[in-house]
């Protein structure tokens, strides 16, 4: 039902139906182990659809009807699978329908394995929503941020960079923030070019100083580009800002960490 991908378009239970993934020219295919990228943000800030945009495939479900309360680690495997890892390290194969029935507190994370070319370059983690209601950050999310080579903070364009977002972001260690990318999502919901320009100008001044990089992405257009199987989807994808985001993330990954 969501404005992103409909429930019906979720990966089918068990092995995802994503058989062939499109070529992803923007991720350099190097022989290194894939870089870890963690995507965080407040609720409904477009985290999951950004993950899908990064990967160029409908990898994770993006419905607000069944919010997923666990981090989802997406990595490459020739055979698609969804595995739940419990706090006691026990693992169990599952599917998206069954995920909602898992105990909320007993699960460490979900492993989503997909045969996507892009996953040979990066491993992406989608996380549950962060909230600035006085509670400390989810320990699991914090650990994933510490381990990641790039951390993407999603802020929705229509209500971008609120005080609560800044509060959460500043809770992260400086080491993590130095690898941060501010992704302004749903740029396509803005109503005019001048709105876009004014928003970007404010965010550059107010938010960008807390991040290593900043990128704008039109999630809805990116999703449409993905659905378009024919020629021209690449151009569409580039126009949606997906390519720009990938470049921004890659730039952060490529920056050697300060010792």
């Amino acid at each position, binding site marked *: *039902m*969501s*404005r*992103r991908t409909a429930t019906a378009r979720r990966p089918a239970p068990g092995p995802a139906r994503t058989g062939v993934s499109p070529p992803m020219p923007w991720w350099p295919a190097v022989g290194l182990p894939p870089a870890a990228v963690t995507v965080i943000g*407040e*609720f*409904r*800030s477009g985290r999951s659809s950004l993950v899908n945009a990064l990967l160029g495939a409908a990898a994770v479900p993006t419905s*607000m*009807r069944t919010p997923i309360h666990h981090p989802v680690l997406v990595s490459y495997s020739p055979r698609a699978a969804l595995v739940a890892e419990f706090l006691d390290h026990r693992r169990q194969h599952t599917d998206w329908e069954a995920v909602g029935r898992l105990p909320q507190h007993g699960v460490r994370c979900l492993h989503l394995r997909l045969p996507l070319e892009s996953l040979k370059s990066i491993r992406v983690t989608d996380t549950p929503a962060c*909230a*600035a*209601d*006085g*509670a*400390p*950050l989810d320990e699991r999310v914090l650990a994933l941020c510490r381990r990641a080579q790039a951390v993407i903070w999603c802020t*929705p*364009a*229509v*209500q*971008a*960079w*609120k*005080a*609560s*977002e*800044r*509060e959460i972001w*500043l*809770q992260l260690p400086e080491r993590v923030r130095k690898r941060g990318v501010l992704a302004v999502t*749903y740029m396509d*919901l*803005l*109503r*005019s070019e001048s*709105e*876009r320009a*004014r*928003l970007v*100008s*404010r965010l*550059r*001044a*107010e938010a960008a100083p807390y991040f290593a990089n900043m990128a704008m992405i039109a999630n*809805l257009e990116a999703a449409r580009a993905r659905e378009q199987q024919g020629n021209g989807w690449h151009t569409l994808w580039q126009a949606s800002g997906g390519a720009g985001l990938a470049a921004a993330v890659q730039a952060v990954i490529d920056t050697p960490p300060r010792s």
Partner: protein
Amino acid sequence: MGFNPSSLRLEAVEAAHAAHGKHGGELIGAALEEARGKLLKITAALVPCLEEHARPLLEAAQKQLALSCCRIGIVGQVKAGKSTFINALVQQPRLLPTDINPCTAVVTVLNFRNGTPPPEHAAVFRMFSAEEWTELAEGGGYLRELTQRLVPNFHPELLKAQLEFMRNRAERRLGPNFRKLLGQCHKFKEITPEIIADYVSAGEAHSTAGSTRQQYSDITRTAELFLAGGPFAFPTTLIDTPGTNDPFLVRDEITRRCLENPDMFVFVLSALQPLSPSDISMLRLLNGLNKDRIVVFINRIDQLAEPASEGAVIKAAVEQRLRREFPARDIPVIVGSAWLGAIGHELRSGASVFDPVQRSALERIGLFRGGATETLSESDRRRLATVLYETSGMAEISATIGRLMCTAGGAILLQQIAACLLELAQAAAISATTELDTIERLQAARQAEASALAASIAEEQHSLEQFRARAEAIEATFREIEAHLADIIRRGAGTLRNDLQEIVRCFSEELAAELLNKLRQERRGRFWTFDVGALRERLEAAYLDAFRRMAGDLTRVERFLYPQLEAIAAKLLPDAPEAFRAAPVTPLEPIPCEALSSRVALELGAPWWKQWLAARPSPQEKAQHLKQLVKEEFYPVIEALVRLAETRLAERARDVMTRANALSESMLTAIERRKQRLAAQQDVLEGGGGDRQAIRRLHEEQDRRAKALREAKTACAASSEELGRVLKLLEASCHDAGGA
């Protein structure tokens, strides 16, 4: 044909419109305004009929009626679309400035007074005084005060940087001599969007391009607008606030300062991020202000992929969450889009072409199909306007506001005034009837023997003495009751204070224990904040409970007053035992306890707590200081609550006594006048009837008085009847509102 009727299930929408139809054409608060108008007329009609003692009450009522209005606060997070919502609600799409960046920087008060002539200046902007500005710009104010209480001498970098920025911007925009503008008041006879933008809009914060117009928003304290037209029949004041959760801390502070007791809140949410944790904490804050009258408006559904179906899901989710969070409340939730409402309004007022942005948005949600036709046909235009009015939620929110208005402070005030006037009119009618009776008897006796007249006078005087004695006894009783009321309030306040302090003491112990526990478990606490929401809830529950108990005691004593008055009335008018019926006792509701929602240092974010923890060495010391902090922060809140309860109850007691005294004194005055008349008659009689001229003068005076009394009697009776109708009208509208 551009209009696509199939995509929106027009039948359903049009059926919904028929359901709202009765509100569609009607102005908001029409029934209340009708009652207010009638009460003003009745008050004017009663002035010549009432005794001196009742005059001040009448004048007060007249003043209150003239000033009464419904204050509606529009609140919500930054960029939820509050200004756009107001523009759509008042049907002036370009009135308040809106932008993609946080735009409203100043609390803007919009006054709609359809019944009264407009003031000379339609827009009044007040600047901060030099002291206020300095306090704000130097980082004084509430936030600073809170941080100082938690971590003295800790100056957050962010606040400092933002304040510096604000000072520089004011200087850049207004010139180096901008301080000369402080304390000024700028008035305009006409309102234009440009003028409002100059004073209210935050403007392009970061652009270097110089604007040709002066931007005063950095130093404007309040903006007050007086608007003609609008959707309200009853006098209404809308308060537009800068959004909360604004990263610009100074603006956030300005909003918190302005929530001065509105009768009702419209809480605007964005459908894109409905009811985020920040929204919930804001709602908890409002909770203390006036929880009975909050409406939630979920804005921006036009930006969802499928507004109708997704909107319904979001609405259900928000309702469910609100029920869980505020189980005792029934908070109405309405989904819509102020932006669509504005387009609908443009169509209604004759526009038949869209701009490209509107066009593509309407296409996206399936209300419009791109085609060769650029211009809508007349019937399509009207149909689409109707559909947009419904889809935008503006019809529903108008109806809901109207409904809530009927139970708000203004409506209760009208009821109280009507009840008070009814009592006065009835008492005046009784006095007039009895006095007229005496005169008529004297007039009849004029024809009879002198001895018979003397006997009649003596009899009257005797019965009057009895009344007088009784009335005086009642006055003494009233004084006792007054003392009793004061006693109830004093003792109740004492108990309330003790109870609340006990609650805070317990909570501080719990919190300190929790802290010690946490410190034991974790070697270094990374993130610390304390949730005092539970304490607020406990305090509020105890406060409301105690208030209701005291109010119950007061109203029970009040009820004792009326039988006394009825007894005098029955004695004076034995033939009409029903002449005085006590007006319904208006319930005494606790007023919003703003004090409960004031922010305390304990609610500052994690960075401050880190500093706080770092400053104290041992866990015991930390726990001890935390305990002390809870008490220091909440004892003033308790004092404010106790004062609030005392003031409110004392006010009520004073009102009741004023009314009762005015009534009994009116009756006493009437008795006194009759005694004088009898004495005069007796004098004449004893003078042997020699002075014919004196007798004639006396009789003429009696006749004149009798005529005046008959008129007063008729007028009072008519007013009483009319007041009965007004009370029924108010009751019915209040009941409808409750039942709907």
